[in-house]
């Protein structure tokens, strides 16, 4: 009998302890971290820029332009972010490629000659970009050539736009 009572007390005590821990609430820690984000994309490639005409007596041939592509950016780093542009290789003398990026979150540098801008000498094309997003801004390319530079068979250049601080 005594043994039974002891067992009952032990069991009872055990449940009493469990009861003390029975909770009608539960908590969970959720940590949300937002890291630095830089994103830039372009809408595709511009059409071929082909110089086909000029004026008699003038060395500078009639330039051609393309503004069919756009770029979009998103960044949360700061309010002094910029976009730079460069080619994978410089153009030969007598040929000129300029680029102009429109911007609403920053300040466009206007028309920038990137003919000789390579990875080591990228040029700023948009500066002072504020935190946030800027979508579908127009990219304008202009290609011009001198008659004295001669003809140019189809040549490709990779233009790299970099969103950076």
């Amino acid at each position, binding site marked *: 009998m005594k043994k039974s009572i002891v067992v009952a007390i032990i069991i009872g005590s055990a449940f009493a302890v469990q009861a003390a821990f029975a909770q009608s609430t539960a908590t969970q820690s959720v940590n949300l971290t937002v890291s*630095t984000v*830089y*994103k*830039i*994309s*372009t809408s*595709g*490639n*511009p*059409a*071929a*820029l*082909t*110089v*086909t*005409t*000029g*004026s*008699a*007596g*003038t*060395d500078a*041939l009639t330039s051609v332009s393309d503004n069919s*592509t756009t*770029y979009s950016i998103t*960044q949360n*780093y700061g309010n002094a972010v910029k976009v730079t542009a460069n080619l994978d290789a410089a*153009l030969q003398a007598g*040929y000129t*490629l300029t680029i102009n990026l429109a911007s609403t979150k920053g300040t466009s540098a206007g028309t920038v000659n990137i003919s000789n801008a390579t990875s080591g000498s990228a040029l700023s094309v948009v500066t002072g970009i504020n935190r946030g997003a800027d979508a579908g801004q127009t*990219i304008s*390319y202009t*290609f011009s*050539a*001198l*008659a*004295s*530079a*001669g*003809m*140019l*068979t*189809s*040549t*490709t*250049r*990779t*233009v*790299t*736009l*970099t*969103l*950076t*601080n």
Partner: protein
Amino acid sequence: MKRILKNITLDIVIVIALHGAFLPQHAYSQQATSTQVVTLRVMELNKIDLVGGPLTLQVNSINDDAGEPNPAIDASTKLLWTSNGDARKIAVGTDIASPRFILKIEAEKSGSGTGVAEPEVTLSDNSPHDLILGVQRSAGSCKLKFTAMASVEEGVGSESHLITYTITGG
């Protein structure tokens, strides 16, 4: 115990050093890129144009000594050209197969650009005649000197020439 403390201190120094070395670099290395492929091409082009004209050459005086009419001369017309090709030439021709009167033309090279002027050309038929040779990858210009001549036997009359300038491969 002292050794342990020394090691810990050293570790802390190293950690701080690494932190100081990499954190700024990390902070300034943030960027994203996007690329576009641009295709560039310049086609062959040859342009030629005239400044001045149409003009009228009038033979209306006689040389008393020779008893022949004096030639009429005009150098008011300017020829312009642009070519990004190599070894081009400029030829000139009239639309009259057998002119009644004599009409001569000469390029007086005084402008810029490449090219060598040929001697004075007589437009005696409607075939093209070389006017300037050695034109290449340039824009140039020159004055055109027209000379009209007639003999007494040819009497009085008039001719209208349509003169064509052509820049072609040389």
